[in-house]
């Protein structure tokens, strides 16, 4: 486990809290390494992320690739409006849709 990602798991869900403020060339490798430990429903939490560039997007795409290979679902949560705009520009949102915290409530109860 890296210092850059904090995990929370319940049932089939893993929430990966990205704890760095910059998802960039410096943090990309450590973030991407976590794609080896996904769950059937994996949620990347961006609440602490202030900046994402294309090196960071490449790291996030490794989660997309891993999820597709395993048949898992991948979501993003607490994505700022600016980052939602960037994800839309590169059509990342097609492969990692944004969900709300309340959408996970049923899984937490189960």
């Amino acid at each position, binding site marked *: 486990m890296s210092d850059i990602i904090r995990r929370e798991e319940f049932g089939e869900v893993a929430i990966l809290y990205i704890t760095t403020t*910059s998802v*960039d*060339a*410096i943090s990309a490798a450590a973030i991407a390494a976590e794609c080896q430990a996904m769950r059937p429903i994996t949620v990347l939490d961006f609440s602490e992320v202030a*900046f*994402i*560039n*294309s*090196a960071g*997007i*490449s790291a996030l*795409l*490794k989660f*997309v*690739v891993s999820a*597709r290979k395993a048949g898992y679902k991948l979501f993003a949560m607490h994505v700022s*409006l*600016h980052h939602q705009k*960037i994800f839309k*520009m*590169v*059509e*990342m949102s*097609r*492969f990692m849709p944004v969900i709300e915290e309340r959408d996970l409530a049923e899984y937490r109860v189960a």
Partner: protein
Amino acid sequence: MERVELNIPSNPIFERVVRASAAEVGSAFGFSTERIEDLKLAISEAVNNAIDHGNRRDVGKLVAVVFEIDGEKLEIRISDEGGGIDKVDVGRHTVEEANLEAGQLRGFGMYLISELVDDLEVSSSHRGTVLTLRLYRRGQP
């Protein structure tokens, strides 16, 4: 005209220094928070290109970044000391299923820059490449 100049070694950690400076310059220019985020991302992409593709991470080579505020215009020039490039593709580049299958997960930088700034120029020679980004105060959302 007001001018800020930075020179960083070709180590990606120093891209963060340029990005922090971009935020301050954007703020001084009177940009909105959203426009500052656009500026930071565009400059980040340009600087990373200069570090990776221009100077090939040779820390002995510098990336020069010049911010110039001139009236309603903010111009940023990012220069590397590489061998130059033949062609720049600023076309739309999005995540495609075929690229995911092929493991091609990079290449969004120039497209993002072109979308986030008002004007982009590239000049290149055997002495290096210069990206000139222009953003206008009146153009902000």
